């Protein structure tokens, strides 16, 4: 069948971040994910597209959603997946990341999925192994599949991304989710505002990411937004030099029912999880019908299937 492809082929060997992706690449991933989502609604939730491919999941940092989501995506595509955690591997014996990865390479995997506490770890690994590397979150740098699934959820719920007004609220400085989302949403033409304690807003973020910084009260930032994305406040940073306490954070930067009432009735409330209930978001908000937190998790599987599929089937060189 000679259907004319409406997309440019996907030419990336790895998915290390949103930064190297073009608008077209992102559109291809999201469109592919639409087809993948349908597989999850079938009686037999499995297709043979990655049969015979080996995927190594190396999570050197704790993860529930991302790890589970990648594993389900791999199984739905029929890949053979292997798991590796830092605590159960020779990392605890002092083996370096590159050495561990060279040994993983000896098993000839097709894809390595890496979560690591050090920014840039997936980039380093990608230079030492032949497998395609997917960044599942590196330090405070990027978490590309999270931003892609957020974009998928927004597009599914609101029909577009271009021109939408998005507020990202929380610890912008230490959040890889914020970074990937700022990059992706700006590439797709959304209007992005960030907000949080001034100690957690990176200096120069306006110029570096072409976003706005809201200064003042959270209440004043909510009224005109189509999407309100709350970020997890990392516990280790509470009571530290950047933040006085949970209570104080929640009072100034938390989304509660009173603040929810200030948002537009059709605005999406998002959170990448895990939610610190009562800190950045009250339970009544997290469980309300305005929150799409669980849809985000569900969509993560389809988006990760799309990424795995596109990386495992590189475009033919002289494609028609």
């Amino acid at each position, binding site marked *: 069948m000679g259907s004319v*492809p409406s*997309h440019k082929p*996907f030419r990336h060997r790895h998915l290390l971040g949103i930064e190297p992706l073009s608008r077209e690449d992102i559109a291809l991933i999201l469109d*592919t994910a639409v*087809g993948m989502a349908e597989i999850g609604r*079938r009686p037999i939730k499995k297709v043979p*597209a990655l049969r015979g491919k080996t995927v190594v999941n190396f999570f050197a940092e704790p993860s529930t959603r991302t790890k589970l989501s990648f594993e389900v995506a791999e199984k739905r595509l029929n890949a053979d997946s292997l798991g590796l955690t830092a605590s159960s591997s020779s990392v605890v014996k002092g083996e370096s990341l590159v050495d561990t990865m060279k040994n993983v390479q000896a098993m000839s995997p097709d894809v390595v999925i890496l979560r690591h506490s050090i920014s840039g770890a997936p980039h380093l690994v990608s230079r030492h192994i032949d497998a395609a590397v997917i960044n599942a979150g590196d330090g405070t740098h990027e978490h590309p599949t999270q931003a892609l699934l957020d974009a998928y959820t927004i597009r599914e719920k609101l029909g577009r991304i271009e021109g939408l007004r998005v507020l990202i609220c929380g610890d912008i400085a230490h959040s890889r989710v914020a970074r990937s989302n700022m990059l992706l949403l700006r590439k797709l033409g959304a209007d992005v505002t960030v907000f949080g304690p001034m100690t957690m807003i990176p200096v120069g973020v306006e110029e570096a990411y072409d976003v706005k910084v809201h200064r003042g009260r959270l209440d004043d930032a909510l009224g005109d937004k189509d999407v309100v994305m709350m970020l997890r406040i990392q516990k280790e940073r509470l009571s530290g030099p950047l933040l006085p306490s949970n209570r104080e954070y929640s009072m100034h930067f938390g989304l509660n029912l009173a603040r929810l009432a200030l948002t537009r009735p059709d605005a999406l409330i998002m959170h990448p999880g895990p939610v610190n209930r009562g800190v950045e978001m009250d339970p009544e908000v997290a469980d309300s019908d305005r929150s799409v937190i669980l849809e985000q998790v569900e969509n993560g599987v389809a988006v990760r299937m799309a990424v795995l599929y596109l990386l495992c089937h*590189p*475009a033919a060189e002289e494609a028609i």
Partner: protein
Amino acid sequence: MAMVKDSAERQVLDSKGIRRALKMMASDIVLKNPDLDRLAFVGILTRGVPLAERLAAHVKEQEGVDVPLGKLDITLYRDDVGLAYPNPVIKQTVLPFEVSGSVIILVDDVLYTGRTVRAALDALMDFGRPASIRLAVLIDRGLRELPVGADHVGKTIETTREEDVLVQLVEVEAKDRVIVTRIPGRDGGKEA
């Protein structure tokens, strides 16, 4: 690849020819599958879908029965993913009827190697256990690589592997016609 400009292009069906072929196929389908209640058309994306719609319209005209219509994306079941195509976008499979127990008429534009049909059969089986599956194609161009045969054929033509058969439909292109062209500098392997 749809618009290959080549002097060696020959037309095997015009719009009238396509219409007659489909009408004849619809009558044949009704004749050989009298249990219309269990019948369902499933078009293989992309061009099988408009053909399935047209067959269903002919059956409606002839018998006054609305036969359910589905569409099937077989990309993830292909044995040559990544070889023949620049990653095609996965489209949604929609089968709005109970697959188990139904008599499915699988519809595609061209039957060639038989590999698409093999993939389509695997895909359909993941949705249930049909009572039977029949294959309807507008063009059978021969040159099979797998033991697959069509039950309802619009037109059988002789081709070589150096040729490409293009079914153009108004739903996708400007007009209805079927042409055979020479593949410039490459052998085939892309058709059904």
